């Protein structure tokens, strides 16, 4: 009993996320097939009604009309099987890869996938960069199936005000994979009668996409917020520093001039002097982190960012407000005693902080403020804070930060004696110090712990490790991956327990 090739259904698997209309897409295909008299069956496992979870829909369609089957009824299966899918639709890049790695995209499969990413919670949670490497995903997708169509379908949907499912239907309808024509699909959208206009727009955009040749998508780089170049420094940068580091240094100079003033930028260059003749990679890494550290976040900085001329335009663009449409903007601030003390003179700050600690107000006393920057008065409040820049070098926090920066730089210089790689990782530890309030505090604690319990003992020869830079990198990554769940302590203890002390050898 040979399973004649003619009598094989076309198998379609859709991988989508809740809320993307995967079920509607499935129904459009099924209804169109019914309309044209083709035997079809579809099923799904949507489970709960919530959004964002990964789910799949499965369709089987026999490309022979019912009337030509002599009364026979095909038995369609409800379970997709690896190696047996003809057409795979995936509405997101990682879901496409998930389908591929589950064996649903093989030599017989045409893959239509959106190459945009919707990050999973786990990827977003890390304090560092927890995103799955996109290049790896793209590589897998590009090599998958007998044919694949990759595009940012999400963008096309957005541009047309439709949902991604309609765009997919458009692409599918133009591909000649099913015995159904694009006008048949279009009729199904109309007959369904829901959001017909926007769905048709998405559908047409998907259909039009196919007509463009070589439609591989090249995303434009994310818009940069680089400031104007401070040209007066260019000569010194180009003369004194390795080429590999120059771009970062230029950015740093611009950033610090904007943050404070030109002489602060000069200080930045001076601080980089010890690294100019060493490894260019190290110089670059120090420059990047130094510029960020020197432009630490305080109230003045926040006020500056929120009163930039371009900001309002950007926000209006985000919500697509018309020229005449009023827009209200509310900022959320909640400074506490430490944040305010940051700006006071050191002698006063020390006293207040001591008192606050004694009375338990350090954490508990906070001033909740909702500032409406779309009103003149609200905007003025922030602008006034921004104007306090001149005062910053006299503030308590300034002194503290400069001292810590110097310590960190000295540590990097020390670390250079061990190796450039070790020094680079030491410089990168600065990534831990970020955020505001408790986040900043915790990050600083982690930084101090790694420095005191690993970097310094390494440099003093109390720990001898073959690849200290690898250990250091791991410690940093561990700390960034889940900062609240602090297993740094145990990791360090383990290192101390297993690493032989160089002095004992």
């Amino acid at each position, binding site marked *: 009993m040979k399973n004649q090739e003619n009598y094989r259904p076309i198998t379609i698997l859709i991988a989508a996320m809740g809320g993307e209309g995967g079920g509607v897409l499935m129904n459009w295909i099924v209804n169109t097939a019914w309309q044209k008299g083709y035997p079809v069956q579809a099923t799904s496992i949507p*489970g709960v009604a919530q959004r964002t979870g990964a789910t799949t829909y499965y369709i089987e369609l026999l490309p022979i009309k019912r009337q030509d089957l002599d009364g026979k009824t095909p038995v369609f299966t409800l379970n997709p099987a690896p190696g047996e899918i003809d057409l795979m639709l995936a509405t997101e890049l990682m879901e496409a890869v998930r389908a591929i790695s589950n064996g649903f995209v093989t030599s017989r499969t045409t893959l239509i996938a959106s190459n945009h990413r919707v990050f999973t919670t786990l990827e977003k949670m890390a304090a560092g960069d927890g995103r799955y490497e996109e290049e790896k995903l793209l590589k897998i997708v590009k090599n998958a199936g007998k044919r694949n169509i990759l595009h940012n379908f999400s963008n096309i949907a957005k541009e047309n005000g439709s949902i991604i499912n309609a765009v997919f239907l458009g692409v599918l309808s133009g591909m000649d994979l099913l015995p159904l024509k694009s006008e048949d699909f279009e009729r199904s959208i109309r007959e369904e009668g829901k959001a017909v206009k926007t769905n048709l727009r998405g559908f047409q955009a998907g259909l039009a996409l196919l007509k463009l040749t070589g439609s591989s998508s090249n995303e434009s780089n994310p818009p940069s917020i680089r400031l104007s170049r401070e040209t007066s420094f260019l000569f010194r940068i180009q003369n004194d520093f390795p080429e590999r580091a120059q771009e970062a240094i230029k950015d740093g100079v611009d950033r610090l001039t904007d943050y404070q003033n030109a002489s602060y930028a000069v200080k930045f260059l001076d601080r980089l002097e010890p690294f100019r003749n060493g490894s260019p990679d190290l110089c670059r890494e120090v420059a990047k982190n130094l510029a960020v550290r020197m432009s630490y976040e305080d109230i003045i900085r926040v006020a500056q960012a929120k009163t930039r001329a371009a900001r309002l335009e950007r926000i209006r663009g985000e919500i697509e407000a018309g020229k005449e449409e009023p827009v209200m903007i509310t900022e959320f601030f909640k400074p506490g005693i430490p944040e305010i003390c940051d700006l006071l003179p050191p002698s006063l700050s020390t006293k207040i902080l001591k008192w606050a600690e004694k009375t338990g107000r350090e954490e508990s006393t906070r001033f909740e403020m909702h500032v409406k920057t779309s009103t003149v008065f609200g905007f003025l409040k922030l602008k006034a804070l921004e104007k306090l820049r001149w005062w910053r070098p006299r503030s308590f926090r300034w002194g503290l930060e400069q001292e810590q920066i110097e310590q960190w730089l000295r540590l990097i210089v020390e670390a250079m004696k061990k190796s450039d790689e070790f020094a680079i990782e030491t410089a990168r530890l600065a990534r831990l110090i970020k955020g*505001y309030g408790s986040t900043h505090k915790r990050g600083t604690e982690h930084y101090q712990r790694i420095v005191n319990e690993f970097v310094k003992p390494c440099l003093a020869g109390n720990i001898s490790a073959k690849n200290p830079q690898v250990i250091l990198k791991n410690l940093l990554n561990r700390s960034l991956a889940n900062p*609240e769940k602090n297993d740094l302590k145990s990791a360090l203890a383990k290192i101390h327990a297993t690493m032989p002390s160089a002095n004992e050898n």
Partner: protein
Amino acid sequence: MERLFKSEIEKLKLGEGQTFQGEGILAVTKGLLQAGVSYVGGYQGAPVSHLVDVLTQATDLMSELGVHVEANTNEASAAAMLGASINYPVRGAVTWKSIVGTNVASDALSNLSSAGVIGGALIVVGADYGEGASVIQERTHNFALKSSMWLIDPRPNLETIVHLVEKGFELSEASNSPVILELRIRACHVQGEFAAKNNIAPELSSIKKGKHPAPFSYARLSHPPVTFSQEHQKIEKRLPQARQFITENHLNEFFEGDLQTVGIILQGGLFNTLMRRLAVLELADLFGNSQIPLLVLNVVHPLVPDEIIRFCRDKKAVLVLEEGNPEFIEQQIHVLMRKFDLDTQIAGKDIFPLAGEYTAEVMLKGLVDFLGEVEPEGIDLEQTRDIAIRLSTEKEAARHLLEEPLPPRPPSFCTGCPERPVFSAIKLLKEDIGDLHISADIGCHAFGTFEPFSMGNSILGYGMSLAAAAGVGSFQEKRTISIMGDGGFWHNGLQTGVLSGLFNKNDGVLIIMQNGYASATGQQYIPSSISTSSDLPVTSSIERTLKSLGVGWLRTVRTYSVSKMVEILREAMTSPYPGLKVIIADGECMLARQRRLKTENQKKLDAGKTVRIPRFGIDEEVCTGDHSCIRLSGCPSLTVKSNPDFLRDDPVAAINEDCVGCGLCGEVAHAAVLCPSFYKVEKVQNSNSRQRFLHRVRSGIIDWLAN
């Protein structure tokens, strides 16, 4: 209700000569009407929610036919409804998600089965088993066995399913026993077609009422001493009647095949998967013709010994395909072989996995192994093996493409969900006072067990959280927190949790998520729902109910007020008050709210009124990329993007266009003192001339100040 089922209701009205096209569970619903059902009840749950959802919306059709529909408050209440068929010749059907719903219903089912029925009683269960399932993985088969209810597991095509709905009622009446119709997830959601018949208005109904109540008959009570004779009746009378009906009506199907020495006995629900696997192995065609003879059990309990013997006799080996464990069918067949002294070899769970779904892959491997062991004549074993190896090699190769596994993508709280902030608050509280024992429950809030919250020490069933914490509280220094939805509260948490807790002086904390609907199953109304379509008052308010039960410590907090919630939680954890402390976390389901707002806002816009649409944003220059906001929220619209700042390596947080402006970002930033990068922006649509003038003046001055 999440969806309006207008077009689905139209499908229920189809009649003779028309073709029904649609979802499996709707076909069942149509089948009920074609069978002249008089009353229908049920409790929502995937994959059967649509049955009751559609019928409760089809008020016109129901009143025309005289069918009474109840949205029961739990499965026990639905099951007990079938009691109507004990004394009256009326057909009734109820539905729920199994195994959990059947567990809840089982007391009423035992009593119903003992007394027996004179009108057909059909229980439609959605077996939430295998891929996509959301509950513990157990069989419903046990309940059928222990209570002598008959269990139908039809071939998963609409024609057969609907046929067996109708036959199920007849079987029930012919044997005076309740009948369970079990459908797997994919069968409930399958889109297919069948030839419709006319609906039948029941003889006794809400429009044709009976004049006389049933006469008193002690024999119809499940009460001693008649329970003893009922036990005998089940086995001696009803079982043979059922077997006779099954045989005479050919409910089980024999498929002939060329090969005489082997055969397969299978649950009807597995038919389509098996047929495709046989086709892949080139042992069957696409139209249900198999080389291997098949016995398809559309009724899996009771088995009909004559049919089994007839099929197995003269065969060398028979494979039994039975999903789930224990393998009740296989065991019974073994006993039959012994009793009838057949030496047919019976294969089953010795070849197939003992536990888990029979997916396409599992089925293929099992078939190849079975055939390899039995070596039947007329099959090219080498070829079948080659096909299987080719497929599994492809699958293996695919698996190795990934260097590191992909992160999972479980379902999560919706954007703007009112329940997420409560978990943000608990997380903040935990950072402050240390870890806590958290008793989780069934409902959307169970997503609090996933990242970024990862909270919950146990889940013991729908509405069971507080009861599950009762013992723990006795030996833990800190108080326990139990989380329960309003759905779970009405389902049974009110009794098993709150009342028992009060009675036993439970010192714990209970958070009731009051979002106004049974949201996880599609926003069905519950007794405390505020109906938006009518002005009717709520049936029961949770707050009033708790007070009248005697709850002495009760606070209602708006869920989005995270700081307030942390404060109240802290108070509940530390208050000297000795009894149960209940916090009602109040916030309407955002999906329902958005659907409502969309219509309301459109009306306002059409009428020229001002509408403000809020959204949140992040200043990427201010964001330092530490993502603590994400670890405290997990909102789908709060995501990350590459840092536009060349000097920083870590991605910044970003809010995408799905944001509904619920305000949690701002609240969390405040409560946790996170960072000042968040801002709220409101677009004022249909602004009046005064607003526009003010806007022009403001923008002018601000532009001047900024530059």
